[in-house]
């Protein structure tokens, strides 16, 4: 199975359940496993359903694996490295054939653990013992604690979280005005949503990289591979705890002003078997295609109602895959290139990986479309967690993807906390850049 688009000269291997996996520099564990035809990584916590990658963004738990004796690492954000020992979790005897998947069949309608056998003598005790025995995902780590990680403490005037279109534009304006800015992003590269290259109009990834260069030239501090864990106020308000890779360390950054440009998260859209391996979040899939040159299927169905769906279809076609259909829940898309079905997905089929998707057409009929890849482009929803910790008010607006930070001209309800881009309600990349730039200019002009 060749799912890697271009041949690579530099290869290395790691092991997955004892089987050698060929990887290339820049691979994550997930991209390498998928490129090698491994679709099921582990089993799910309760029903032992097969799980592989889904969001490809470090936001869900589908792809958890054990790596060198450490449980529950996300395959999609863990860099592949030569000699790693990767194993499946929560599966007996293997991720592909798991006897405990019987639980999924025994409880087709789900199980309410609160009411299950409640008060039934003897049975309830037996169930409690079994439940404890099969709980959890992975066993304890193999080894005792390693050494302390280095902890760095520093201060900045502005911390900008997220180096997508909004964050880059905002941070550049601040840096150009001579402000002390640290721009933090968890990925190894800048760009955020631009890494998926699904926007029809600029900015694009080249703009992001150019802007990042200008930003650092203007004196800005760019911290990549840096995950903001929380916004504390232990001694000072706006204390960011940041976990950094390469080398591993923890930074405690105190910021006078905090700007959230941390974008949105792709949500799981409900339909039957929406968790089946082979069903992916569309933006994540596009990003993997761009960064790791991996496309884990040959016959794709795309679910989406925006121009992003058409852009993704073109990417798949350019990569040599067949686009069987674009399923459009809104019914508003128009295309002469691809087959469009106005309708919504109702059920994915396949035992261990997707083989077909049932679509309920708006006209009433149901159609089964053969495929080995389903890319779902749902409306992303704002990453509200960190802004809420910093005190920003979170509102709900269905049309903007659900929860979002409420901001007026970039000002949130919390003192010293600002936001721009998709985190304030999902729009286009161009809107995000424009909001970030306007906010950056406004903040740069303020005397604090």
């Amino acid at each position, binding site marked *: 199975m060749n799912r890697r688009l271009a041949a690579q000269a530099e290869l290395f291997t790691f092991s997955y359940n004892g089987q050698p996996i060929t990887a290339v520099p820049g691979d994550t564990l997930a991209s390498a496993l998928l490129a090698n035809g491994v679709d099921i990584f582990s089993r799910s916590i309760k029903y032992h359903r097969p799980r592989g990658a889904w969001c490809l963004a470090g936001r*869900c*738990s589908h792809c958890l694996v054990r790596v060198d004796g450490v449980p529950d690492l996300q395959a999609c954000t863990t860099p592949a490295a030569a000699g790693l020992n990767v194993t499946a979790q929560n599966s007996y005897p293997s991720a592909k054939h798991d006897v405990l998947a019987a639980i999924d069949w025994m409880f087709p309608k789900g199980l309410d653990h609160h009411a299950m*056998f409640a008060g039934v003598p003897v049975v309830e005790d037996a169930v409690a013992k079994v439940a404890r025995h099969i709980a959890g995902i992975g066993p304890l780590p193999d080894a005792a604690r390693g050494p302390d990680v280095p902890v760095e403490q520093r201060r900045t005037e502005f911390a900008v979280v997220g180096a997508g279109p909004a964050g880059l534009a905002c941070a550049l304006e601040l840096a150009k005005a001579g402000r002390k800015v640290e721009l933090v992003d968890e990925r190894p590269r800048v760009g955020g949503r631009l890494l998926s290259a699904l926007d029809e109009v600029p900015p694009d990834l080249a703009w992001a990289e150019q802007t990042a260069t200008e930003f650092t030239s203007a004196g800005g501090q760019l911290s990549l591979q840096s995950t903001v864990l929380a916004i504390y106020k232990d001694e000072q308000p706006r204390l960011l705890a940041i976990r950094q890779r390469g080398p591993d360390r923890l930074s405690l950054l105190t910021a006078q002003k905090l700007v959230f440009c941390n974008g949105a998260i792709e949500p799981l859209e409900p339909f039957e078997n929406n968790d089946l391996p082979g069903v992916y979040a569309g933006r994540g899939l596009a990003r993997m295609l761009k960064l790791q040159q991996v496309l884990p299927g040959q016959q794709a169905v795309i679910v989406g109602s925006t121009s992003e769906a058409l852009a993704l279809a073109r990417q798949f076609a350019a990569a040599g895959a067949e686009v069987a259909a674009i399923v459009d829940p809104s019914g508003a898309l128009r295309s002469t290139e691809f087959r469009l079905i106005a309708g919504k997905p109702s059920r994915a089929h396949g035992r261990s990986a997707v083989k077909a998707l049932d679509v309920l057409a708006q006209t009433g009929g149901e159609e089964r479309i053969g495929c080995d890849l389903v890319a779902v482009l749902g409306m992303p929803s704002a990453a509200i967690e960190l802004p809420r*910790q910093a005190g920003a008010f979170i509102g*709900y607006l269905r049309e903007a*993807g*659900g929860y979002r930070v409420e901001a007026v001209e970039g000002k949130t309800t919390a003192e010293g906390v600002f936001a721009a881009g998709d985190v304030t309600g999902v729009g286009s990349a161009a809107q995000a850049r424009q909001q970030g730039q306007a906010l950056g200019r406004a903040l740069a002009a303020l005397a604090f």
Partner: protein
Amino acid sequence: MGKSLVCTCEDVTVDDIQHAIDKGFKDVESVKRYTGFGTGMCQGKSCQSAVARLLEEKAQLKSERLSPFTPRPPFQPTSLRTYASIPVDPATAPGPGVPPALNLANHPQMQAEPVPEKAEVVIIGGGILGLALAYNLSLRGVTDVVVLEQSYLCAGASGRNGGGVRMQWSTRSNVELARRSIDICKTFARDLGINVWFRAGGYLFLAPDAEHARRLERNAALHNSLGVPTEILSPDGARGVVPELDTKGIVAAAFNPQDGVLFPWPFLWGYANGASQRGVKIETFTRVTGFEMAQGKIAAVKTDRGTIRCQRVVNAAGAWSPQVAKLAGVTLPNEPHRHEILVTEPMKPFLGPLVSVLGSGLYFSQSNRGEIVGGMGDPNEPAGLEMGSTLRFLARFSKAILKAMPVLGEVKVLRQWAGCYDVTPDNQPILGDTPGVSNFVQLNGFVGHGFMMGPAMGERAAAWMCGQSDEMFSRFNLSRFAEGRSEREDFIIG
């Protein structure tokens, strides 16, 4: 098969959300607790908006009532080893926590219709004590009862504790209450139709010095005299119970295999449901704003949803009890103190008992879901109703737990939160009538162990309110502080 998943971390389906709505859980926080959505490895990042959309459609919730559940640090699971690397200044006090609390006034979940105009008994506080009392009153035929809760059920300490239940106390009354509570745990599902998953894995106390070892021995003698099989163990003996322990610096241990852990939330729902079915009214998202006093009595309770005329009022508001009492002109000596706690990723079962290291306040256990649940008090914690989380706690806790169990170094923290202990000067509760306000009953001051005493206290308080005499309600009366008599409980952990 054929499941439509909403939260894939915990395998929660669209049907599960509908089932929770059908059971009456209609705010995001409660649906989260009932179904478990958002409590797994991703902490709700990939599912919360999808659940909100379902609630909007299926429960016809208006958008302003869909406020998200409180997002807890950390944003991504992070190893205890990472946090243990952070330096801690032992001289400073913990600062304010995050996220900041939402304002409960005009809460979006507040019902528009007014509260009942009158009731025989008004119980203030929908935690374990208030609900256990309401249920037990209803069993005795007292059903004209209204329970007032300022937030959702489980929002206070009853929903924030670690779920430990132990008989290992230093005073007879606490040993006996806890033993009765454990008996209730065992029959709870039978009586109230909901599992609390009580697991008798025991409590293992570790003494770091001779003085704490003597306390363990003194307690064990008391326990044995009351029929509780607490055993004193050597450090090797402690490792026999928990092989992963590093007992360097430990001189002795005490183990009672009958202690255990459970899930706190179903206890509240079970009592609330049992009481409601018998006619008790449980009013959530309803704040007490004052009292109407007449002739040294409370004539009515004023709330932000109207006034309830009543014959008797019970103050079961936990850490909020002093505030409530003050509205009636009563000064309680209780003080709220934040205690922080965390939960890790779920692992396969390996840890039987709850382990507590005396002196440090460290305690941790493994829940039935496989997570390590643990906390540690901070001696520098100032009094106050602060329930946010700090980085300092993560650093202190991680250092302490890795000293006790180094193999947890790469285990990742999923979520941290905090609750308030309701601390009294002698670590004993405040029970019974209030001097000067004759129909005002105190049922508070449980110093972090109200959850485990609640089931037993609920029975005793109901019996006492129905006229049975019970010496506890005079022994632990508020008057003891003025009269200078007290019996100190010195075995508080956390």
